[in-house]
């Protein structure tokens, strides 16, 4: 009755197996071969910007697929871990902690609001994880928030407003009125326009602030109409922009005044309709129509169309693609996923992935890139996506960014 006794041979085998299994050496080799490169991707899948966030996710998936189809990195595949930050800075911080502590992500890319990206950045920099932000903010470049682990693939308000301002003041006049959403985004944009306007001797007739989420602008518009400015700049976003553009058009402001906005979103234009937006000028980091002149834009659009049944990528979507692809390319160039070496590789990167040449500036890791100036059209549209004319492209240049010293960086 010694069925339950383990024979000496078997015991030895078991011991050996246990030793092999527990050896950290073996374990590491197994890990290195199969461990995916994880990229955390917090974006506001629910809430008012969910359409934009879906565009970001879809485009980012293309960058991941592309990387994996090319064999990954030493057999390691990339994986995108998409999380809903609900457009809430507190939720975003929790989600980022989850991504780092539980999922052990190698990098974080994403976000779609100034407050959310600053909160994600705050969590990643304390844990020495690279974060590539793909939404607008001036503050993230400043020395107090920035860290060597912080990269900013998106435009910032200073660049956008500067480029749009320079185009507007050159072409439409120098008497300007602002209608501004009363929060950081609006204030930063106004500051950007006024800085750019100094060189032109621009006169600010009025800077009217409206609360976030205003639906009725009829109290503000007659005042603006009476001032008869050359340009009315709407420094607001999303639904506020759509409502104010529609009502300004109804008031007939367009007959005397050119309406402009710092960020002319593809989705806002689709929501607002061709007539209301007709002739409105604004900036963008990307528009799919760029493909007629930029080969990398065509290549990116084609990949996107193929993956999503003929749809074209949005502006924020393109940022998702660019933000993920630069990080993955840097991993390949660095030959490791170690943060410090990937940072060096990112800093050395000169890339052209979807909109022409770009690179990260050394002092604040802001992506130096072109800014498109778009004008909304209502005639001669080839299809439903053909909504803008690209009237000007401001070429990349560090002169259009705030200087490193101004941001508080030493170097």
């Amino acid at each position, binding site marked *: 009755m010694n069925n339950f006794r383990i024979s000496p041979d078997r015991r030895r085998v078991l011991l050996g197996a246990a030793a092999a299994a527990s050896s950290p050496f073996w374990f590491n080799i197994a890990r290195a071969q199969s461990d995916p490169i994880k990229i955390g991707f917090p974006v506001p899948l629910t809430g008012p910007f969910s359409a934009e966030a879906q565009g970001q996710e879809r485009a980012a998936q293309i960058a991941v697929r592309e990387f994996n189809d090319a064999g990954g990195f030493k057999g390691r595949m990339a994986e995108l871990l998409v999380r809903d930050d609900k457009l809430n*800075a507190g939720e975003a911080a*929790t989600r980022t902690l989850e991504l780092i*502590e*539980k999922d052990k992500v190698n990098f974080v890319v994403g976000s779609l609001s100034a*407050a959310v990206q600053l*909160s994600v950045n*705050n969590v990643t920099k304390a844990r020495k994880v690279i974060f590539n932000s793909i939404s607008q903010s001036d503050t993230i470049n400043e020395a107090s928030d920035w860290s060597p682990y912080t990269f900013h693939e998106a435009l910032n308000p200073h660049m956008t407003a500067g480029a749009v301002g320079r185009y507007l003041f050159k072409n439409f006049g120098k008497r300007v009125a602002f209608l501004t959403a009363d929060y*950081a985004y609006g204030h930063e944009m106004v500051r950007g326009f006024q800085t750019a306007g100094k060189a032109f001797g621009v006169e600010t007739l009025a800077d009217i602030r409206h609360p976030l989420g205003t639906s009725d602008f009829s109290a503000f518009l007659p005042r603006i109409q009476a001032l008869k400015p050359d340009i009315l700049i709407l420094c607001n976003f999303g639904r506020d922009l759509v409502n104010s553009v529609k009502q300004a058009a109804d008031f007939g402001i367009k007959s005397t005044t050119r309406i402009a906005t710092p960020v002319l979103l593809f989705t806002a234009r689709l929501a607002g309709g061709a007539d209301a937006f007709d002739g409105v000028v604004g900036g963008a980091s990307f528009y799919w129509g760029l493909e007629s002149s930029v080969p990398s834009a065509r290549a990116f659009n084609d990949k996107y169309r193929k993956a999503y049944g003929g749809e074209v990528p949005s502006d924020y979507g393109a940022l998702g693609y660019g933000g993920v692809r630069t990080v993955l390319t840097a991993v390949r160039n660095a030959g490791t996923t170690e943060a410090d070496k990937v940072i060096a590789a990112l800093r050395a990167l000169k890339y052209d992935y979807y909109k022409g040449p770009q690179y990260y500036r050394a002092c604040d890791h802001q992506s130096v890139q072109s800014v498109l100036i778009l004008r909304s059209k209502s005639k001669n549209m080839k299809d439903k996506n053909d909504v803008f004319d690209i009237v000007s492209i401001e070429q990349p240049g560090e002169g259009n960014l705030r200087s490193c010293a101004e941001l508080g960086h030493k170097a």
Partner: protein
Amino acid sequence: MEAFRPQVDFIARHRVAAVVVFLSLFPLLVPYQALAVNILIFGLYAMGFNILFGYTGMLSFGHAAFLGTGSYGAGIAIVHLGWPWYVAIATGVAAATAVGMVVGFLAIRARGIYFAMVTLALAQCVYYVFFQAETYTGGENGLRGVEVGVIDLFGWRLDFVDPTVKYYVVLAFVAFALWFVSRVLGSPFGAVIETVRENERRAQACGYDVARTKLVAFVISAALCGLAGTLRALHLSIVPIDSLHYLTSGLVVMMCLLGGMGTFFGPFVGAATLLLIEETFTNLTRHWQLITGVVFMACVLFFPRGIWGSILHWIRREGR
């Protein structure tokens, strides 16, 4: 159930110890520590709220003001004044208590729905004060840089960035708060606030100063919510402006109702349920709010006492 009577009684007698033991093991049940810390913090927030709502019978719709003031108080102390973390916690709690005193003083004159509206209005005032004081609070961007890297405890150095360490440090504060609340509820004052809830006129007729009782309950509640706020600032290392938003005030009402108002452990159950549902479904579907809504409605319809309240009721009935 009758067989377990002594055990149940034993736990009921040592409710603080029982809750602390449970919460010490809690991280093992939760997918990740950052969520566990959130549950602790919101549990504490709901417990503070419960003193006013569940025990004194006053429904406030402005408790985000105290959570937020606590957060900003601690955050500003660390970011702008460079004070050590323990002073920052004291600052946050003191600030929330002060705001609680002012809001309470003005609000307790009203009753029922009017009380809720007054607290909501005053909380909105607090929101705009912090929103406009951009130099100190960061305004829309929120306050960043509330970093506590290492906690030096009489030569014993704790790495606060480590999620497990962070959980147990926060738990230490929550355990203190639990003991404090249990002590308050067990005291004659605890009996008085419940009397006020049950029958205000009678309490008055018995010679109790109802207005002062309400004010003290309000301030204690604000201080506990403030403590939750300071811990949240340290946990997230930021203070989002949303923490003062009226939705945050609404959230705590929901947590309290879901867990069981007027029960000692209910708020934690409510916070855990709500956050775990959100956590589970947010990765599966974009419509996670729908599921939260259905669960909430089901609770209101079938368990009006809340989850924990129903369990307690069931144990008591079985025991009889």
